[in-house]
């Protein structure tokens, strides 16, 4: 595994705080932290981020679901094409080099950063 547990726990805590403060998903925070603070390569960092998001989203759905805020039909409307998209995206990723993937992610961060500054 190679990455000390405390670092992973710290990444999770930071991601959770940021996502609740700014309404951004954990991935925006988890992927760069994994890239900068662990030995994971770009493809591993993005894949592992997805696994972490699955856990967090499940907990969130359980919480909101209890309060009756979740609308399953709407989730299916955007979620069904997203599932197909995720397969395509993951497949597409395998054709990219680690460097290209890192730079693409950096572009996403920069775009989001600008948007947060301006909006």
């Amino acid at each position, binding site marked *: *595994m190679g*990455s000390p547990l405390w670092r*992973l726990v710290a990444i*999770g805590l930071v991601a*959770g*705080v940021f*996502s609740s403060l700014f*309404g951004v*998903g954990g*991935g*925006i925070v988890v*992927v*760069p932290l994994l*890239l*900068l603070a*662990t030995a994971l390569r770009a*493809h*591993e960092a*993005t*894949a*592992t*981020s*997805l*696994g*972490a*998001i*699955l856990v967090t*989203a499940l*907990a*969130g*759905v359980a919480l909101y679901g209890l*309060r009756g*805020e*979740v609308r399953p039909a*709407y*989730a299916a*409307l955007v*979620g*069904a*094409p*997203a*599932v197909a998209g*995720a397969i*395509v995206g*993951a497949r597409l*990723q395998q054709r990219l*080099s680690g*460097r*290209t993937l*890192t*730079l*693409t992610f*950096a*572009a*996403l961060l920069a775009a*989001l*950063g*600008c*948007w947060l*500054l301006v909006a």
Partner: protein
Amino acid sequence: MTTWTIIAALVLGGAAGVFSGLLGVGGGILFVPTLVALGLGQVEAAATSLLAIVPTAAVGAYSQRRYGNLRVGPALAIGISSIAGVEFGVRIATRLDEELLRRLFGLLLLAVAAQLVVRSRRRYPASS
């Protein structure tokens, strides 16, 4: 809901999925505004977005596992601890200036993006 809004929602949902599988994000950035445009309130949209993220992240993570990229242990450690982080974030959110915070986060993201560019040159020195 008109036919066109449904088509737009399907297209945006698909795009969110591609982003998710490609870059390891949940897709909420696209899901939430799409759901708000469909008429849901902010809280409902955020909650419903999480439900849409569950199958998207599950299928994406499963694909990545088959490609040999998923690290299950670290994913669980990060996912579980982030639940605690959310709880903490909710408590401090009300005490801070939201506008200032958002701008600072924007700056932070730009700095991290720059750092990633620098890092990628060091880590992958051969031009590809």
